[in-house]
């Protein structure tokens, strides 16, 4: 691992990442050829519906996939190759230079341990702190993530906290060692809307203040719009559209992205108006056809779509779309404004 040339190389470089999972119905290509780069301090969002491979992608970054999963491709984190890295070396990165926030704050904490012990664990593990030093550090972390009266709550158990507080504790745990990269896997899905806003503000503030890079997974376009500078839209294990958040939101070039935007409920829409849906359902990853993964549900599908995987088409502002029918779509969208 080389430390010095910070500026030259991106923090995270993922190239042609494939993940094959063993399922009961046979092997499934959960991630098929994903690539992106993330600079230091850069924020990126991943959107897509359940089962599109978002979580699998970040779990492969952390090396948290089950051992039966086959990962191929390249994941370079600060110059070090993570694919095929020994478990002991991965352990040194996890919780230290890469932190992760989980979806379910109710289950992401061990019910049998006090929170000071759980948040202090990475500090003792990676920084070699004593219990007393870790305790002081945990107190500061809890204060930063907004637990009221943290000093009196250090020795409390997880069940004595509310869901939002537990998510704050989870954030404190991920941040303990001051990671370079923070991964948040749907951090607010299990929370109330008002708490969601507070948690996202907390994450945004911490990312800005510590200069961390952030990968935020969500199926909520609003969350993505407010929190990240660039985004990937995933479908059926591949990235169908990606680029700066503003460009993707403005262009919505891929028919799947259009479908996602069309399915958002709008405030002020007339009562009784049905939400737009994307016809069909998410394809099974086990028997996905060779061509474009969205071909079965897309109204622009032609035979060529089913033949081969569409190549990436470059649009202005570093915006990329994997669709071969962009011109026709643009023409039709122009004629009939969505």
């Amino acid at each position, binding site marked *: 691992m080389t430390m010095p040339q910070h500026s030259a190389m991106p923090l995270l470089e993922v190239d042609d990442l494939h993940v094959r999972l063993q399922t009961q119905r046979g092997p499934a290509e959960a991630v098929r050829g994903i690539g992106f780069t993330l600079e230091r301090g850069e924020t990126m969002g991943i959107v897509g519906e359940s089962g599109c491979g978002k979580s699998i992608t970040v779990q492969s970054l*952390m090396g*948290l996939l*089950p*051992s*039966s999963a086959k990962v191929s491709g390249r994941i370079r984190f600060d110059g070090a190759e993570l694919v095929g890295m020994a*478990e*002991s070396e991965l*352990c*040194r*990165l*996890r*919780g*230290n230079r*890469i*932190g*992760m926030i*989980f*979806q*379910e704050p*109710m*289950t*992401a*904490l*061990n*019910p*049998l*341990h006090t929170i000071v012990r759980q948040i202090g*664990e*990475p500090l003792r*593990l*990676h920084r070699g702190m004593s219990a007393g030093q870790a305790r002081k550090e945990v107190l500061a972390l809890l204060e930063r993530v907004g637990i009221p009266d943290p000093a009196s709550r250090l020795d409390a*158990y*997880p*069940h*004595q*906290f*509310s*869901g939002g507080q537990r998510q704050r504790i*989870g954030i404190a*745990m*991920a941040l*303990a060692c001051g990671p370079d990269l923070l991964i948040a896997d749907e951090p607010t899905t299990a929370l109330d809307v008002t708490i969601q806003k507070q948690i996202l503000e907390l994450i945004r503030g911490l990312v800005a203040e510590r200069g961390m890079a952030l990968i935020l997974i969500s199926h909520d376009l609003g969350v993505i719009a407010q929190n990240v500078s660039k985004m990937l839209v995933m479908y059926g294990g591949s990235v169908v559209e990606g680029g700066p958040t503003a460009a993707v939101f403005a262009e919505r070039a891929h028919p799947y992205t259009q479908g996602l935007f069309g399915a958002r409920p709008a405030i002020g829409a007339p009562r009784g108006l049905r939400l737009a849906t994307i016809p069909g359902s998410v394809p099974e990853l086990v028997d996905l056809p060779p061509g474009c993964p969205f071909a079965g549900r897309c109204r622009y599908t032609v035979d060529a779509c089913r033949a081969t995987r569409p190549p990436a088409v470059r649009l202005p502002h570093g915006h990329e779309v994997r669709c071969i029918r962009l011109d026709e779509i643009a023409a039709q969208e122009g004629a009939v404004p969505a």
Partner: protein
Amino acid sequence: MSAVPAAVPSAVAFKVPGFWRRAMHHPSFAIGAVLTLLLLAAALLSYVWTPWSPYEMDLPSKLQGPSAAHWLGTDSFGRDVASLLLVGARASILVGVIAVGIGLTVGTALGLLAAARRGWVEEAIMRLSDFTMAFPAILSAIMLTAVFGAGIVNAIIAIGIYNIPTFARITRASANAVWSREYVAAARACGKGSLAITMQHVLPNISAVLIVQTTIRFAIAILAEAALSYLGLGTQPPQPSWGRMLAEAQTLMFQAPLLAVFPGLAIALAVLGLNLLGDGLRDLLDPRLARAR
């Protein structure tokens, strides 16, 4: 503070105020605890006091019924049955503690290893325990004693070996469930290795299952010791054992039926007590069942 009345997890339950109060109102637990304590008390008492010497024969007063002098009568050698029962409790407890100890330590370690490593390690351990389980316990005990000679030590080892796969399977199944929990993923995301996760997260979270299983296995071990001694493969004379008392009483079934009743009753009560204790603990340590009451 919006504290959620979440399920209080098992190992914490002992520390939670009200656990013992709740326990005392749980009939199975209370009765089981009393019977188990009686068993322990009998064994402990036998070290300091017995009404008569359990080894001293008194042929003139053999096969007496219960009386003021011999509370539970005398056996065919004129030994005091009450004294024999008290000392016999030692053998039952010794076998229970050591045999279950072997099963608990080795079996739990194997189960934890299987759950932590998965893959071929898990496969090998589990197939090996299937293989061991396929032999009936008594049969393998007879085999062992046939090879190494009869005696309480070999009986303990035989019963202990039989306990290993049981604990290995239960541990692996419960540990696999814990490994799939999100807090284990969170611990891994913190950079913890498998050993640390096993000791800090998996083992404490399956402790309730293991505690319950230990009491139930203890009862089975007492039964197995009695069975082996009855067959002449366990405790050797003159060391008293409930199983041997039953075997000796069997030939005198028609002259002195009470001789079989007392050790039979002792075995039954000890096993019943431990089973009730295990049942009660299972309910008390499981927050869902505890609340349902």
